[in-house]
């Protein structure tokens, strides 16, 4: 395996990690919006 192949594999592995982190963070943010959680205090009156 050439050094270039190793380099491609390393970059792909790092790319995979960063993509997974963005996907996970996005899932959290979208879940917040999708979740019909507690209404705001002013709505409880």
């Amino acid at each position: 395996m050439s050094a270039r192949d190793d380099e491609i594999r390393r970059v792909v592995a790092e790319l995979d990690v960063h993509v997974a982190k963005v996907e996970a963070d996005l899932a959290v943010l979208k879940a917040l919006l999708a979740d019909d959680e507690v209404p705001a205090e002013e709505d409880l009156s």
Partner: protein
Amino acid sequence: VHALADVTGETLRSWRQSKGWDVPRMARELRKAARDSGEDVAAHHGLVKMIPQWERGGRAPRERYKLLYLKVFGDIARDLSPGMALGTDFAIRLAEVRSRAARLPGPEEIKALEAAALAKPRESMTPAQIRSRAAETITHLHEVATKLAELSALLGDDGDKS
């Protein structure tokens, strides 16, 4: 990526013919695979000219086109060339990671999500946590862009779109 180095013009022709596809159909399949990955490729008529050249061995496709072939013919590549399995699997993984990266939203969309989340009070996450999470997401998004650029440079994706 040995799988890519091992793909000859004859192999490309045998993969296409095994599906019973003519050259225009092959061009459509490559463009469809590229669209799914969010990549730009040559126009249909350009591919129709290039595919026979690649198959005759007169001109070697760039690696990003070989990756598209592997995406289209992943199963066949494994079956016909067991010795290439590891490399082929890696090439497919590469295409999948790039495809996932291409589907990510931009920073503006993340900022919009942050604003929308901040507008709806939550017990599960404080505004500071929401801001922090959005900032972290954008940081990782920049890292994704950096890695994609590194990868394009390594793969020689320098605009062979004609």
